[in-house]
């Protein structure tokens, strides 16, 4: 990185300056760091480009244990937990799976802290019949090592495997039909949870889409219960699915959740984390590049050089082995709705950056991780879901990108899949997408075939594979983005066929991608870049 004089603000602040986290590139600006899978790029952005930085991490709670105990003793619209316990009752603790948070946090994971407190309380009240279920829905089952990391060795050794296990959405004896909502949406839930006197749900809210009724109604359900809302029309009608009030996905899940609450006694514990992914040696990655010190620059160059010398698998292993330094900023317990409402506020406080005006071109660096590839490969379908799904939906109010605008992703788009985790993705990508990218057609013609493929079912149940229907959900997840965005260009794609199958264009570099974007939206586009990770969401005027 070239030497720069300390930045001096010259002239007026740009007219659109909305938030301290928004930086406009001028002639004196430093190049920006962008993730491109397992690599880091350093790019000069066009003058006038608006860069959205994540907010600094909110200070974590000084004593998480005390905050958790306070929440359990002072729940919202519910009796304190100790008052709900009685000797001999059957209790199930359900926990979010490894897709939350991202990357996995340093140990002890906040789930471990909460469950340790819960188990103490349950034990003190004579409750012996306790199971811990991972609410993985149709996500892959966690390995024993991952399960151990999540709750700590002590709990793991005491409960695994008989009383600490993954939810199995395909267990014919393990699912109970609770009924249908007034919109005829079926609700089938984990039998152990339904037959428990009390279900305590331990949640981590990473993004506003998480938590609330989604925890039980989605995390512990089966394929049939997911079908009504994990489908293209619902996603199209969600504006965005990160904004629960304007999300059809959330509306449908809430209907199912209301039915769950009529049949089950659920005590919800929700937590919000700050966005402290990087600390210590990697803290510079969340800084504004204009404020880099010489040490930051040296660290960056050393990291980039090291990464350039490593094979991709080693880089992936390295990144996945660096845990995030998250801290808990809030915890509430009690009835699902009020708890979720409070937590959502904390989420938005951390992520929302006030923005005025949509962009013609949106640059989104795609990192090495998504909710669906922890300890695995960010395959082409997941690149798609990060761009058209998550990044497009990281807004409240209206999309950050104008209708018909251009999204630029930075990722190598390598044609790599994890055979153990994503077997059905491979067939979906290689067999179905070349035939059609139409989500409705895919759903009606092929979804059930994949969902009921005996091999995929067995790989989900006995191995660590995502369910056969999951690649379809990933494609639907990008549906509102696909309808809204005019063109997607992948800068740095190392091959032509992967972007082509996804319906994307490719460019060798970011500058070439921007030039291509200009030919689509005009010579002087409003360009915005989301500088993540950590997560940043646009709170649009």
């Amino acid at each position, binding site marked *: 990185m070239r030497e720069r004089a300390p930045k001096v603000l010259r002239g007026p602040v740009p007219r659109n300056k909305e938030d301290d986290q928004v930086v406009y590139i001028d002639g004196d600006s430093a190049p920006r760091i962008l993730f491109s899978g397992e690599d880091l790029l350093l790019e000069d952005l066009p003058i006038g480009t608006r860069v959205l930085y994540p907010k600094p991490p909110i200070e974590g709670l000084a004593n998480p244990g005390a905050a958790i105990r306070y929440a359990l003793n002072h729940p919202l619209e519910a009796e304190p937990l100790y008052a709900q316990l009685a000797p001999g009752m059957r209790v199930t603790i359900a926990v979010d799976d490894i897709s939350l948070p991202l990357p996995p946090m340093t140990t002890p994971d906040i789930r471990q802290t909460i469950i340790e407190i819960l188990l103490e309380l349950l034990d003190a009240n004579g409750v012996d019949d306790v199971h811990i279920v991972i609410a993985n829905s149709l996500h892959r089952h966690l390995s024993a090592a991952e399960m151990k990391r999540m709750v700590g060795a002590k709990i793991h050794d005491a409960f695994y495997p008989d009383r600490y296990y993954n939810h199995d959405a395909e267990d014919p004896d393990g699912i109970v039909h609770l009924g249908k909502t007034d919109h005829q949406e079926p609700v089938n839930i984990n039998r152990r949870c339904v037959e428990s006197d009390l279900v305590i749900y331990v949640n981590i809210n990473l993004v506003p889409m998480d938590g609330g009724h989604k925890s039980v109604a989605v995390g512990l359900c089966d394929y049939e219960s997911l079908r009504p809302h994990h489908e293209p029309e619902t996603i199209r009608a969600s504006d965005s699915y990160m904004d629960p009030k304007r999300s059809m996905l959330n509306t449908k899940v809430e209907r199912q959740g209301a039915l769950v609450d009529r049949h089950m006694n659920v005590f919800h514990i929700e937590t919000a984390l700050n966005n402290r992914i990087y600390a210590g040696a990697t803290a510079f990655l969340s800084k504004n590049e204009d404020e880099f010190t010489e040490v930051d620059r040296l660290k960056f160059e050393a990291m980039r050089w090291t990464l350039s010398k490593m094979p991709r698998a080693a880089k992936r292993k390295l990144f996945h082995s660096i845990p995030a330094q998250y801290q808990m900023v809030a915890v509430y317990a009690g009835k699902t709705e009020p708890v979720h409402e409070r937590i959502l506020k904390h989420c938005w406080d951390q992520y929302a950056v006030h923005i005025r005006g949509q962009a013609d071109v949106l640059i989104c660096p795609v990192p090495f991780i998504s909710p669906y590839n922890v300890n695995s490969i960010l395959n082409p379908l997941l690149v798609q879901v990060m761009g058209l799904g998550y990044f497009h939906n990281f807004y409240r109010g209206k999309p950050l990108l104008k209708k018909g605008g251009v999204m630029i992703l930075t990722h190598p788009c390598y044609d790599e899949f994890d055979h153990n985790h994503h077997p059905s993705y491979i067939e979906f990508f290689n067999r179905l997408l070349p035939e059609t990218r139409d989500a409705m057609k895919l759903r009606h013609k092929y979804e059930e075939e994949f969902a009921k493929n005996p091999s995929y079912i067995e790989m989900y149940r*006995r191995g660590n594979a995502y369910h056969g229907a999951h690649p379809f959900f990933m494609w639907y997840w990008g549906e509102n983005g696909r309808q809204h965005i005019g063109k997607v260009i992948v800068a740095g794609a190392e091959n032509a066929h992967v972007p082509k199958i996804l319906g994307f264009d490719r460019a060798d570099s970011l500058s070439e991608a921007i030039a291509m974007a200009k030919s689509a939206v005009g010579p002087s586009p409003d360009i915005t870049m989301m500088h993540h990770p950590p997560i940043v969401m646009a709170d649009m005027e």
Partner: protein
Amino acid sequence: MGAAAFYDLDGTLVRTNLVHAFAFSARNQQGLLKSMVKTAATLISVPMFLAADFYNRRLFNDLFFVRYRGESEDRLRCLAQELFDTVLRPSIFPGAYELIDKSRQLGLRQVLVTGALDITVGPLAKHLKIDDYVTNRLEFVDGYATGRLLPPVMAAATKASWMRIYAEKENLNLSDCYGYSDSMSDLPMLSVVGHPTAVNPDIRLRNTALQHDWPILDLR
């Protein structure tokens, strides 16, 4: 057009193989001495069988089935149910029942395509509620095995060609059919169906499955 699920048997749905079945027969000869001699001979031959199978399934068949020479058909049939009860049934992989069940729910015809002997497969097929099966058959003359197999010998490409003929006869669309096997020798069988799956694969089949992006399933 309909569809079917074609399964290899040994190593795919059950832990045992041809040698286990033969060893059971060797152990149950008429007379203790004969049983001991035949069992010892079988044990000594195991490395040779392994090497032959690794090299070529046809070579293995030639070397292996000759061991049945002189066995009485009545006796083999008599022992079949006992073989199933004591050896085969406990060796069925736990996931096999579920795989077949899910497959049946899809409306697929359940078909075993195996190099095992018809005598041993019958009770097992009945137990797993298999609709159809094709096996190898020993040649008997005057009620005694000659040590040869009757054609067609079910191995490698023969399995695939039998499946093609079967599909045509039964009006099945092979592109909609599923195939399950544990062994590289069944590559032709897996190649003719639209949905091949490597089950508990050996290293060679695992690598091939990875190259072809086929699902890899562990039923053990």
